[in-house]
């Protein structure tokens, strides 16, 4: 049986990988993917806490899982807006290379 700690370690690792991706990848869409990964790592840790914190009546605390739904929704909305911005950026700068988009004005 996996313990709470194991799930949390995995979640931490996922978060770290996502954060590293945000810092190190050059393509904006890959950065977005890494961002999603970070969010999902948070989701994982929330679900883990919900599963292992058993309440007085023997049932798990479902508040965390409801919170996860919120996070997923917000992530989806954010991706929609973000992708729209990327498309606009691509139309303006003709590149998805993040290092080329370092100044506000040409």
């Amino acid at each position, binding site marked *: 049986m996996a313990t709470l700690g194991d799930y949390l370690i995995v979640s931490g690792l996922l978060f770290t990988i996502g*954060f590293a991706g*945000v*810092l*190190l990848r050059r393509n904006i869409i890959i*950065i977005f993917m890494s961002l999603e990964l970070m969010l999902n790592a948070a989701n994982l840790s929330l679900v883990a806490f919900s599963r292992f914190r058993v309440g007085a009546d023997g049932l798990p605390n479902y508040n965390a899982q409801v919170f996860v739904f919120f996070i997923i929704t917000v992530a989806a909305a954010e991706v929609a807006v973000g992708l729209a911005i990327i498309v606009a950026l691509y139309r303006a700068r003709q590149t998805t290379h*993040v*290092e080329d*988009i*370092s*100044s*506000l004005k040409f």
Partner: protein
Amino acid sequence: MQAFSMSVSAWYVLLLPLFSAATIILFTRRAGGVSSIVSVGAAIIGFLFSCAIFASPNTSALELTWIDIRPYLEVPLGFILDDLSKTMLVLVTGVGALIHIYSLGYMRDDAGKARFFAGLSLFMFSMIGIVLANNFVMMFVFWELVGVSSYLLIGHWFERDSAADAAKKAFLTNRVGDFGFMLGILMVWAATGTVVFSEIAGKMSAITSHPGYLTATALLVFCGAVGKSAQFPLHVWLPDAMEGPTPISALIHAATMVAAGVYMLVRVGFLIQASPQALLVIAWIGTITAVIAGLMATQQNDIKRILAYSTLSQLGYMIMAVGLASGEAAMFHLFTHAFFKALLFLGAGSIIVMLHHEQNIWKMGGLAGKLRLTFVTFLIGTLALIGCPPFSGFFSKDAIIGLAYEKNGFIFALALFTAFLTAFYMGRLVLVVFFGNARSENAAQGKESPWVMTGPLLVLAVPAALAGFGFFASRFLPLPHAGEENNVVRFLPTAVMLGGVALAFFLYRNRESDPLDLALFRRRFYIDELYRWLIDATQERLAAIAAFVDRWIVDAGGVGGASGATWGVGSLLRLFQVGNLQAYAFLFGLGLIGIIYFTVFQ
């Protein structure tokens, strides 16, 4: 009548030349003629007022307070009106007025005439200030002002490099002496708490109780006279000062400014005479100056330079007299010297101008017939200078030599030797300039000067001839007492004088060029070269060090360092803001980790 009362008239004498100078500088700078009239008018009116002051028995004048920080220091602006200062005042304003009139002719065609007369008026103001000052600080202020006027006037023809350099040299050499003078004043003030002459005289016991301090103070005060009266070793500026126009040489460097040193020493005679060691030093410096100046004069070829060295020599006599504790003899010689030296300089100026600014005596000759009046007055001046009886110089020089016989055998011998030299080089001068054949075109065409220049010569010739006699001089000065001397000594000065003239006659009669060639004297004992080396060795090195510090430590290290450090830090910090999104995210993450660390684990 209050405005013209005696107590205020001294202020008029002092301030009139100042107003004249101010008027010329502010209003009539372009109009040379008007400026000269203003200046000459001020000088003549000043002389008349001085005569009135001389005639009145009044000894007090209106006094103002300048600095008042009692009980530490109180400096009044007051006048001292005893016989000494009244005589000196008449002398200064009288000779000054005559030279003002003479300058009307001498500077007639000069472009800077207004500037000249403004400087002349400024000088009169400063000199009268020295004569009348009743305290050390006021005298020092005017002392420096006289130095400034001398600088401005020596450098009147400043486009000439030699004149500009001579003016600088005069001022700087004076300044060296004035430094010692200031230290002396400070020492007097420290001991007695006052700078007013009369009060110091009353508090002398505070100084005399420490003989070393007293000697040091006396010698430092003497430093001022060494600078101003061009004694050895600060004599180097006076011959170069001949670069100025001749009326200036006559007024400043013969009759008045250089006499200010002697006057000051007589004024504080109570301080000087309290220390026998200081007196000895003073006497010897005067003697040395007299001797070396006499030696250097025998080989000079510029008429003004010969007279300049002669002035140095006579000043040496005066300082010698001060050192032999007889202020009366010094002032007597100063009195007669002012007349005959001014006469000689003005005569030289007359010759120079009439020969189209020729100053080399070996280009003159045979002028006795052409410039008759100048010749006669010049001759009278020469006879007075070499001490030929019955002219004025005989009495005053004899008084000093007699004093030297009583007090110090060495000095007596050297004084006699100097008298011999004086007669020799003046005989040389007169023979070469006035007799023989004309040695150049200019000399052949010389003619007499206009009346505006020969007039003052005639006026000056009278006191040069007569001022020595007791009945005339005793109205002005206390005469030095005639000590008992044996008959041989009484005639020795006259004998050496005749000897000097005879030697000059023998050597210089009918010559085309100088038969003697003594480089040591002609090159002025190489003292100028010595000073140049000294300045190079010390000041140039200090200046080089200062330049190094300024260039490498202050500029490169300090200023460069500060700006470089700022630039470096700036370029470092600039890397944080390059617009790189991922870099920002990285720093964001770092900050987050820091916050987590500090909130959870601390």
